[in-house]
């Protein structure tokens, strides 16, 4: 064997774990602040940072032959393609055919345990006639 396996110093591991605990606290703290749609972006940024730290240090990718890191990054790239191309379909369905824009339109089974409305969601008793006129679009 030409070179020995890298032995990461104990200090590095403890520092890495400390950082992970700290970032966990940050992400919980950040979730209680209303940042609108930026909340999810921030949560994913922190999770991505944590994941990067785990892969780099705990999974030893930093000291490995780079082929291992290439495989891992490759898997993430394929995942990005998977998500990206799927979203180009699911996010723009309504643009082509408005009929299929809302995918969940079948009544879920547990609603059937509440036989209190008709097929269009209107109450079965006296209020039914009240709404009769405006359900034509269903």
């Amino acid at each position, binding site marked *: *064997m*030409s070179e*020995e*396996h890298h*032995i*990461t110093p*104990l200090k590095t*591991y403890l520092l*890495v*774990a400390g950082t*992970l*605990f700290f970032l*966990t606290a940050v*992400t*919980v703290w950040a*979730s209680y602040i209303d940042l609108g749609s930026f*909340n999810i972006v921030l*949560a*994913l940024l922190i*999770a991505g940072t*944590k*994941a990067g730290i*785990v*892969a780099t240090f*705990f*999974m030893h990718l930093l000291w*490995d032959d780079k082929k*291992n890191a290439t*495989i*891992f990054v490759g*898997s*993430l790239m*394929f*995942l990005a393609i*998977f*998500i990206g191309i*799927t*979203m180009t379909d*699911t*996010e723009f369905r309504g643009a082509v055919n408005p009929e299929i824009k*809302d*995918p*969940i339109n*079948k*009544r*879920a*089974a*547990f*609603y059937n*345990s*509440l036989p*209190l*409305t008709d097929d269009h*969601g*209107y*109450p*079965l008793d006296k*209020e039914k006639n009240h*709404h009769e006129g405006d359900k034509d679009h*269903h």
Partner: protein
Amino acid sequence: MSHDKSSPDHLYHHFYDVDQQYETSKLGMWAFILTEVLTFGGLFVAYTIYRAWHPDMFFNANLLLDVNKGLINTIVLIASSLTMALAIWAIQLNKRKLSLLMLFITFLCALGFLGIKYVEYEHKFHLGQLPGEYYSYMGPEVVQQIHDQEKIDSYIASNNIFFDKETNRLYTMNNPHIFFSIYFIMTGLHGLHVAIGMGLIAWLMVLTARGRLHAGYYTHMEAVGIFWHLVDLIWIFLFPLFYLIG
């Protein structure tokens, strides 16, 4: 490290030397990790699609999850990742007893994780917060009275409306059964990985106790370590995506 270059016991005949054997094993492990990323990836795609289609559904159903339990599990899993890394560190320095101790703590953390998960699942099973057609919970977190008359039509369009005879009012709920389908399949598959990881860690403890693993040969531990860190890595995403939204 002092590899006996001549021909150590643990060198299989189809490898040129122990170094090549070690690198090959790790490459194989990383190829497996790739399939794991894509397996969970499919579920993350499902999550992304439904989250994009129905953000309200996630915000409402999220109220039924206990952030504290999720946070404790996150801390437990990060701690177990640290002890797993330290078990490898110890074996690299030939500290077998320390390595064994670290593996044992990792095992206990995994057990603790599944214990907390069991309490969570048990509670949800009891309340009927179940996936798909088995869902039956109608608590105030997911059921909202419709005050805005103009919104009624849009609720009717999505068919998520029902009428309560006793209060004589219209109510809606945002498909929590779909949220729980995604929640149970993702955390369930992750929990299965934790359980499998426990078995692998127990196997490592046996190998270490028997003296099969040492500073010159710890490939099993390195490979299981990579697997275990992946389990941690996936939970790092599951925690904010399920527990910290809304």
